């Protein structure tokens, strides 16, 4: 942890009211990167997607603890979002655009696609019946833009 300049770990209840809270938390942490408006929106959107997935898929709307960890290393943000819910059987399949297991709830299947589009790195670790962790990385002030 020696090269971590700042960090924040948060745990909160997995209810949909807290999706907004999660975006506010990540915004509060990310201001120290002096982000552009677009960078801030990127991180807020990715956070919203990951937290929503814990609530709807991980806990199937029955609630449970969500953990978010943020670390600042130079201009890099490491963001983790975790639940202790049902887990994902086939992560590769889950990450395909438009794939969703909850079409009856009008899910678009674009959650992981947005996370990948807006962050510089997205990795998912999931164990069936144990839970899911999404690891994301964002490099602020990078000159290479996505196409």
């Amino acid at each position: 942890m020696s090269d971590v300049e700042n960090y924040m770990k948060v745990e909160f209840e997995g209810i949909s009211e807290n999706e907004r809270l999660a975006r506010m938390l990540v915004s509060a942490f990310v201001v120290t990167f002096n982000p552009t408006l677009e960078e801030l929106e990127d991180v807020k959107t990715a956070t919203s997607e990951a937290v929503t997935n814990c609530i709807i898929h991980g806990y199937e709307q029955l609630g449970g603890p969500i953990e978010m960890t943020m670390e600042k290393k130079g201009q890099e943000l490491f963001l983790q979002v975790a639940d202790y819910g049902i887990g994902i059987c086939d992560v590769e399949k889950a990450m395909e655009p438009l794939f969703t297991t909850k079409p009856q709830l009008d899910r678009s299947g674009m959650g992981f696609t947005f996370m990948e589009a807006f962050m510089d790195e997205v990795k998912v670790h999931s164990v069936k019946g144990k839970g899911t962790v999404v690891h994301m990385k964002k490099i602020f002030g990078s000159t290479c833009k996505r196409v």
Partner: protein
Amino acid sequence: MEAEYQVDEQFLFIYIPQEVDHHVADKIRRETDVLLSERSIRKIVFDFHDTRFMDSSGIGMILGRVKKMRKCGGSVEAVGVSNQVARIFDMAGLPSVMTMRQKEECV
């Protein structure tokens, strides 16, 4: 933080709030479907003038209404879409299934 609804003949205007996440999208979905079942609506106009945040839950809610309206020969339109929201629309391919009009913005 609440959506507002206005029915004018066969049009349903939905004024979308500042932020659309799963919590908000779910509420709009339920409220809209009540209106659609009670009134004979041919066109939904989503008004995004106030909206500065939307994620994939908003996309799902809109696509669901597009499917529903198509079944009865109706249609869906989005107006006042900011650059921020437009990039989400574009990535999800929404402009190919519905009319989208962007907000005029000074750059």
